[in-house]
């Protein structure tokens, strides 16, 4: 486009006016950027918009309109540049100019919603400058009363045939004589007979027809309104997929079928790149349905059917391959806000053989909510294919390993222990902690045994967690190990919370069988560090009191007779506690 010199023509625009327009355009640009940068729940974009709206309204009150000329990279007001695109491609002017907009005019009376609509349109085109979204179409559809745009139109000049081009050699005389005058005047010409056509409406018929046409019955009004309501909720993509399956089913030409599958493949990739996981999941679901349908057709499968099923399965497999899912992670990472439920739906629609690729998403995804979503998907998907989670177990990133450990725990299948065994000695305590939490939830001896091994983990928290888990599972295998720990001379130097946990866990697992061991622990003498030893005694009495049986109560009563003041008092307190517990539970107090 040639650069035009507007300087002379628009000299009347004063500096103040130009300055205020520049500010407004800056606000427009900021509003647009803020939508791109901030998530939808952030108040900032709305603040910008309100400011922009107020500013524009004030300007329009004073000037009636604001007309901007759109250059390839700048916006002009009265021939003077008021905005320049930045270095990168895809600035505001570029986006407008590319689709043919040459003027943008705001008119007095501008409404706030119109600003929002305009920004939404520009935002759509900004987001994906390469897509086929046509800014002019979007703007036109918004149908804004106070924002007008002018578009260059190279097509408007077309040759229009004129009336003179139409031949004029019709049988007028014959028509006139056979249809109007019936040969009363002049020559009689043969009448053309069209028995069924050209009927005349009788007057009463006409009246009835008109009445019938003009008046809409309540049913008719209802049927149109229903159709319009349905239309508002119409999702043509769903219908289109439905149709695709219809066509897949009847297609007999394998190469045509293959081409369609290639298209579906391509569409899937595009949808993923556009973050339209909802549509993508619909496609995969329809494909799954299709494969199921043709395979289920009476059990008899010919080679065409087999081939078709295979091709479709191939597309589903590809939908869940590493390349595609890496793309998906990237798309999710690139977005501040994201409807993760649609991503969930997509991943869920994939076949189980995509599990390793889904696991690798745990490595690629940057945000916690996204990884949690993937975990939820895997929990469902890997139920019957635990072994496919193996890759995640040996992943170099601790958070991947931890997530997989958690998934295995949530699934809770016995086989999970086999996988977790590989990481009981993982160097990261966060992983080991997760392993313990998972082992607690997994049934079977193997998990129990593994859990016992955590009683001598280097981390105190993990040891405590393991002991509590063992108690929860009533893991008998843990008893000899716990006895050893408690009997050890060093035990009295353990941190109090760990001592308490070990003793209570022991009591919890052993029950009445453990009473004598605990009594022995209380009775044991120690000459060194008596306060530490007393601490152990207190916890042991506490553990006894938790056993909640007559035998345990009896044992505490016996211990209450001891000379040691600490032991005596602790036992008395414990007995009081037991008594009030009984009262609460409505049981009679003991005989002794």
């Amino acid at each position, binding site marked *: 486009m040639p650069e035009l010199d507007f300087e002379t023509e628009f000299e009347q625009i004063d500096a103040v006016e130009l300055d205020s327009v520049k500010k407004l355009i800056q606000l427009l640009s900021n509003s647009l950027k803020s939508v791109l940068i901030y998530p939808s729940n952030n108040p900032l974009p709305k603040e910008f918009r309100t400011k922009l709206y107020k500013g524009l309204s004030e300007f329009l009150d004073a000037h009636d309109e604001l007309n901007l000329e759109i250059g390839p990279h700048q916006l002009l007001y009265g021939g003077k540049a008021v905005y320049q695109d930045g270095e990168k491609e895809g600035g505001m002017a570029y986006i407008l100019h590319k689709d043919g907009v040459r003027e943008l005019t705001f008119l007095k009376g501008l409404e706030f919603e119109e600003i929002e609509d305009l920004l939404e349109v520009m935002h759509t085109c900004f987001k994906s400058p390469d897509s086929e979204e046509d800014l002019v179409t979007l703007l036109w559809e918004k149908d804004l*009363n106070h924002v007008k745009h002018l578009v260059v139109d190279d097509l408007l000049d077309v040759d229009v045939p004129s009336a003179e081009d139409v031949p004029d050699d019709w049988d007028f*005389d014959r028509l006139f004589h056979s249809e109007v005058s019936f040969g009363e005047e002049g020559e009689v010409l043969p009448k053309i007979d069209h028995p069924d056509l050209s009927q005349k409406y009788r007057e009463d018929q006409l009246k009835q027809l008109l009445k019938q046409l003009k008046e809409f019955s309540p049913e008719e009004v209802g049927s149109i309104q229903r159709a319009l309501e349905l239309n508002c909720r119409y999702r043509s993509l769903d219908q289109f997929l439905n149709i695709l399956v219809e066509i897949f089913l009847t297609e007999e030409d394998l190469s045509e079928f293959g081409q369609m599958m290639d298209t579906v493949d391509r569409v899937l990739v595009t949808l993923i790149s556009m973050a339209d996981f909802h549509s993508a999941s619909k496609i995969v679901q329809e494909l799954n349905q299709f494969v199921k349908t043709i395979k289920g057709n009476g059990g008899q499968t010919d080679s065409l059917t087999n081939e078709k099923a295979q091709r479709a399965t191939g597309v589903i497999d590809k939908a869940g391959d590493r390349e595609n899912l890496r793309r998906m992670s990237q798309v999710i990472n690139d977005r501040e806000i994201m409807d993760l439920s649609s991503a969930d739906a997509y991943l869920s629609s994939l076949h189980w053989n995509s599990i390793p690729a889904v696991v690798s998403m745990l490595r690629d995804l940057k945000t916690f909510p996204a990884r949690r979503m993937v975990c939820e998907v895997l929990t469902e998907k890997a139920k019957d294919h635990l072994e496919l989670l193996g890759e995640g177990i040996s992943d170099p990133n601790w958070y991947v390993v931890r997530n997989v450990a958690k998934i295995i725990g949530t699934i809770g299948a016995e086989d999970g222990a086999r996988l977790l065994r590989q990481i009981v000695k993982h160097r990261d305590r966060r992983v080991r902690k997760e392993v313990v939490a998972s082992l607690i939830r997994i049934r079977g001896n193997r998990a129990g045994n593994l859990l016992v091994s955590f009683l001598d983990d280097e981390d105190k928290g993990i040891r405590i967690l393991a002991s509590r888990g063992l108690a929860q599972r009533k893991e008998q295998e843990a008893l000899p190990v716990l006895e050893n720990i408690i009997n050890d001379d060093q035990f009295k130097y353990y941190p109090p919370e760990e001592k308490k946990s070990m003793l209570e866990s022991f009591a919890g697992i052993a029950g009445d069988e453990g009473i004598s061991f605990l009594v022995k622990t209380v009775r044991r003498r120690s000459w060194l560090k008596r306060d530490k030893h007393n601490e152990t005694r207190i916890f042991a009495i506490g553990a006894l009191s938790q056993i909640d049986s007559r035998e345990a109560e009896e044992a505490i009563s016996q211990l209450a007779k001891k000379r040691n003041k600490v032991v005596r008092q602790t036992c008395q307190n414990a007995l009081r506690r037991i008594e009030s517990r009984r009262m609460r539970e409505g049981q009679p107090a003991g005989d002794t």
Partner: protein
Amino acid sequence: MVSEIPVKSREPDKTALQKRQLLEKGKSLVSQLCATIRTAQIYDRSNSVYVRQAESLLGLIQGLLEGTGEFLLKSKEGYLFLNDTRLRFSFDGYVAGKFIVEMFRKLQFECIFFSPPLIREELDEFVFILAHADAEGEDPFENLQKRVASSNIEHLRVEKFAPGSDLGDESEPEGQKKQAKKRFFKTLLVAQETMESAKSKRSINTVKSKRAIQFLIDQLIKDEGKLMSLTAIKSFDEYTFAHSVNVCILSVALGTRLGLSKGELSELGFAALFHDVGKVRLPIELLNKPGELTEEEWVEVKKHPIFGVKALLSRRSIDRFCTRAMVVSFEHHLKLDHTGYPETSAQRDLDLFSRIVTIVDVYDSMTSGRVYARTPLTPDEALRRMLQKQGKSFDAALLKVFINMLGIYPVGSVVILDTGEIGVVMEANPAELSCPEVAIIADRFGKREKVETVDLTKLDEKTGKHTRTILRTIDPHGYKLEVARYIY
């Protein structure tokens, strides 16, 4: 002028509810105004039918005046506005809306101002002036102004088109006609180009089509008649393309009546334009074959809905326009009673757009007579036959809306009038289905010197009856009469 009106709210939080209420009132105003003017055309001021109608209109206006103070009803680019709020009509209010827009257009004014305190006498005088205004005189607006000025009307006034409004060249009938023609042929070219590229299995560029359809829709909203009349020309060489454009125009026109938004209309227009895109994959000899098709040939023809889906599928990306077009291509030969083709594994609930396109498609095919070597039917006969099949092949209610749009003597019908004149129907009259605008091509003596367009709704001042009525239609094909010559 407009800025003096205090109703407009500047607050971003203007409640949607208020806006909706205003919209509803605006729509009632239009339908009451239309009803009152039409009653005034038939009855005199003391007639009870008129009195009841006028009372109801007055009540409505007074309610609005109380709520908002002075207000105006404005027509711009084919839309009606109450102050600054655009009134959108669905199929039930459409005729009234169209009637008022047409009245504004014919009498060449842009808005009516209502100010308090309006009384019945003023309203009556104003309504009767409008009801009997002469749209055909030298300067209809000047005339109208004079009559209003010489009466006792104080609180109602009309204003001429504001400078800078969209009229200009196009306000001249010839200018508008030319504009309509340009848009029609532009779309024809785009359709041809697009379908040719579909034929060679190249990827279809849709932006051009979308923009062409926008032009059509804008034109339809401004002046439906001119564009719709072009669909009656059936003599273009490339049948499939002209048929596509016709189906596009009539479908969008029908969609407008249903109150669809611009976004929906452009999707509908796009789907309609490409409903037969699958035909480009059929051999040309088959499409142009004279005589009946053999069974094998029918099998081929019946593939075109699926071919259409495939052609649209070959695009790089698939947007909402394409998905909708694929649905319509697939469904446009499926009937409401689940007959038709292609075969499906389950019964489908046909999309609203497919139902619309089916009606329009059948109408255009029947009147064109090129498809599969049928004899063309006259437009009114085609509608009559379609009415017989309503509910089975077509959505009955939609068909009714369609006929209400075309009139019972659609554009392109050749008619004999009770005056002995021969005419070609040029434009339907939404208010009176049997009284279209007709170009008189010969007088009762068979003379045909100049073509004159008359409005059949016009009443004889003395008798109160129609000056001309249609006696019957005739089939022009037997006489090699090309209606195109008159429609142009």
